[in-house]
């Protein structure tokens, strides 16, 4: 075991982690631990853009952006946080430009902007051009640019280090630490992939920036490595997760594969059609049609398929039609996604419509934080020295449904805030002693899996998990389907206890890591389902067919899910609490587009 000491340890080197590192590394001794090389992070997959009311091409302002974010999130957004994000968006985009990000340009040489779902002029009048972009590679450019700046600032990276535990001064998992008791983070435990060695990083501040958890579903736009590690680690240590029942299903995944085709395709004029060739979104969202928010479009598509108007031999997808666009325009604005259609489905988008179906895309929920990225352990108390930003966190700026382009924004705005806050905390905090035997939990779990001669296969348990989540907790949910998912997940958790890995080696044992990642997915799936069952209403990305309308009377609050340890360490139970929604300017209205 090796021990290291840094003022600030950042876990994750995607957009949020690197944006945080750029701030904290100039102010405090900082290390970034990441299970992937920084440039492999899934921020690089983001395509469409990052919104900010620059008003470079038409009138716009941050207040309209705030409103769209709140309405898009079906009023579950904390409005103070949304306001911070919309205001700081402008500086966040300009920061990136000054770092060298190659944005597309207007004829005047300024940053160009385009339309994106749910972003409107003057509180819903018409679509507005607010998304700043670099072709359909915006996330790639953000990730590269932030990494370039990290190279410039000589940020210390620990690449291919898997963080597997966070160390806290109190055991929160029993649920018995009273409100108001100070609790602090003292470091993390990490596994070095290359050697199999365990490292303890002692830190005054820890920032979680570990990204999303799309792999709880089978059809997803998320990378194989998006297994919700940060969320699950926090959860296991007794920190709640907020609003996990809200998962975004992006309308346009390549049918059967889940690979994303950005909403930019519709922003640039693409149209969704059913088997009758009908532009069906005209029926569901008469004003902004194909550019309605994702939850609405995804449900509309699933509904077309359910009602027999799907395309293809199985009638199980709809079509994204770009054929009326100029090939030159497609090449200039959508080069990558049209190549995906060619490579993976063999479809030529110039002349043929592309088969698409909703794909699990984004976790609106996550580790609850304040607007300064401090992690909350209940509705009011923060954990000293623990921060979270990016998709792992729930600020909450996305509420029940995230608007396109607001996540690249989120990672930049709140990544920056996290870096500043973590360094500021470290500047005044004293060093804490590490708990006795800080690696016990991690080593115990690793040995259990590696030493078991025979047992369940990781891939079997994972496949069954993903299948039940797709079948029972996707775009349409009912009490019955969710109970099925809950029972399945519980049974799979039992089977997980007897999982064994075939690779018994120490070096580069990805077999072992996949097993640990599966454990995270199971815990998170349980929380998603528990929240979805309890929320007997439909709001944003969470749609209950048995409760098809929003119920502000009973459910205008955030869900706080806690994993409580039972009699034995293997017996855990999800308990649910609530947290009020912060409302400043906007009272809930019906969400129509």
């Amino acid at each position: 075991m090796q021990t290291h000491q840094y003022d600030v340890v950042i876990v994750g080197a995607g957009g949020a982690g690197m944006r945080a590192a750029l701030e904290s590394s100039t102010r405090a001794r900082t290390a970034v631990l990441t299970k992937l090389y920084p440039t492999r992070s899934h921020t690089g997959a983001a395509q469409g853009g990052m919104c900010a009311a620059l008003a470079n091409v038409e009138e716009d302002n941050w207040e309209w952006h705030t409103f769209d974010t709140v309405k898009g999130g079906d009023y579950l957004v904390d409005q103070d946080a949304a306001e911070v994000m919309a205001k700081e968006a402008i500086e966040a985009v300009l920061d990136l430009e000054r770092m060298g990000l190659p944005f597309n340009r207007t004829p005047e040489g300024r940053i160009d902007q385009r339309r994106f779902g749910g972003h409107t002029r003057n509180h819903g009048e018409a679509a507005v051009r607010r998304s700043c972009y670099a072709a359909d590679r915006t996330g790639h450019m953000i990730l590269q640019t932030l990494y370039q700046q990290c190279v410039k600032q000589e940020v210390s990276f620990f690449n291919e280090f898997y963080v597997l535990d966070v160390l806290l001064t109190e055991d929160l998992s029993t649920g018995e630490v009273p409100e108001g008791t100070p609790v602090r983070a003292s470091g993390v435990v990490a596994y070095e992939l290359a050697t199999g060695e365990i490292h303890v990083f002692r830190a005054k501040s820890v920032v979680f920036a570990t990204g999303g958890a799309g792999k709880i579903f089978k059809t997803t736009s998320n990378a194989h490595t998006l297994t919700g590690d940060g969320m699950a680690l926090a959860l296991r240590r007794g920190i709640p997760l907020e609003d996990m029942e809200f998962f975004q299903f992006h309308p346009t995944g390549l049918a059967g594969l889940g690979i994303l085709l950005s909403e930019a395709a519709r922003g640039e004029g693409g149209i969704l059609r059913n088997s009758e060739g009908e532009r069906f979104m005209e029926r569901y969202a008469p004003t902004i049609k194909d550019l309605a928010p994702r939850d609405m479009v995804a449900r509309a598509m699933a509904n077309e398929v359910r009602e027999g108007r799907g395309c293809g031999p199985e009638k199980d997808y709809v079509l994204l039609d770009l054929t009326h666009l100029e090939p030159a325009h497609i090449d200039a604005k959508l080069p990558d996604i049209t190549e995906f259609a060619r490579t993976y489905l063999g479809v030529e988008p110039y002349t043929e419509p592309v088969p698409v179906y909703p794909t699990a895309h984004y976790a609106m929920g996550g580790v609850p934080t304040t607007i300064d990225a401090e992690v909350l352990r209940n509705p009011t108390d923060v954990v000293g020295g623990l921060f979270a930003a990016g998709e792992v966190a729930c600020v909450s700026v996305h509420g029940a449904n995230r608007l396109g382009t607001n996540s690249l924004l989120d990672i930049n705005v709140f990544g920056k805030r996290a870096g500043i806050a973590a360094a500021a905390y470290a500047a005044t905090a004293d060093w804490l002693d590490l708990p006795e035997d800080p690696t016990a939990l991690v080593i115990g779990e690793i040995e259990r899996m590696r030493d078991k001669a025979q047992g369940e296969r990781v891939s079997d348990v994972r496949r069954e998990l993903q299948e039940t989540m797709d079948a029972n907790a996707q775009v349409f949910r009912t009490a019955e389907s969710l109970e099925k998912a809950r029972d399945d997940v519980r049974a799979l958790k039992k089977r997980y206890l007897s999982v064994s890995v075939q690779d018994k080696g120490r070096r580069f044992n990805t077999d072992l890591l996949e097993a640990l990642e599966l454990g995270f997915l199971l815990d998170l799936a349980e929380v998603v389902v528990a929240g979805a069952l309890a929320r007997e209403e439909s709001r944003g990305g969470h749609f209950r067919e048995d409760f098809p309308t929003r119920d502000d009377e009973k459910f205008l609050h955030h869900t706080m899910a806690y994993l409580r340890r039972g009699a034995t360490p293997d017996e855990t139970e999800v308990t649910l609490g609530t947290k009020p929604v912060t409302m400043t300017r906007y009272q809930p209205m019906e969400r129509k587009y």
Partner: protein
Amino acid sequence: MTAVLENSAEPDATPEVGAVPSFDVTLRIRRFNPEASEAAAYWEEFTVTAYGTDRVLDAMHKIKWEVDGSLTFRRSCAHGICGSDAMRINGRNRLACKALLKDLDPSKPITIEPIKGLPVVKDLVVDMEPFFASYREIMPFLITSGNAPSAERLQSAEQRERYDDTTKCILCAACTSSCPVFWNDGQYFGPAAIVNAHRFIFDSRDEGAEQRLEILNDKEGVWRCRTVFNCTEACPRGIEVTKAIQEVKRAMITRAF
């Protein structure tokens, strides 16, 4: 070892577009276990059942998940944008997640080896550190002088277009590890580093071109390139790598960029 498997059929999700019936495919994989008592590389064959749109990565996952969990390779995004899984497939560098089995003549065994010129760590995993070290050396970041402007720097669409091609790089190392000069001389910066230098040298906002050209004027710099074009062929992002290197060479002589 040879194992034949049935695909765990996915009845509702498989797309019919371009669908091809299932077929068996044999992968001949170069393996290396650093912890074996006599650590030496060897070949191992696996036969699995695949479907029309399956990629090499899918077949490898199938082996790892259903036959031999110790088969080791890097991967993340599975659609060609993270740069994790460059490997030598039938003698050519490609991303496993972008190489469709049906395009590779599955009637013959498909050979899979780690990319060349970087130390092999385990099976298909190589040590990427030397590759990233070269990248860092060419100062891959915007260099400007004076105070940052309060709004954005202006750049015309034409100026933006000038370096568009080289902004697409995902640092997968397919180019560098396909270069015979790099195989023979690990000190050579390699195409990827030059591509990333190009990205800044031709960016109208950047003022560091002279410094980068000085670095690349080194004996291990651009002049080692013998325009073999392997890199251009290997690049999964379709970057005209050799052309970029030529443009850097020309800039070195004319000092015009």
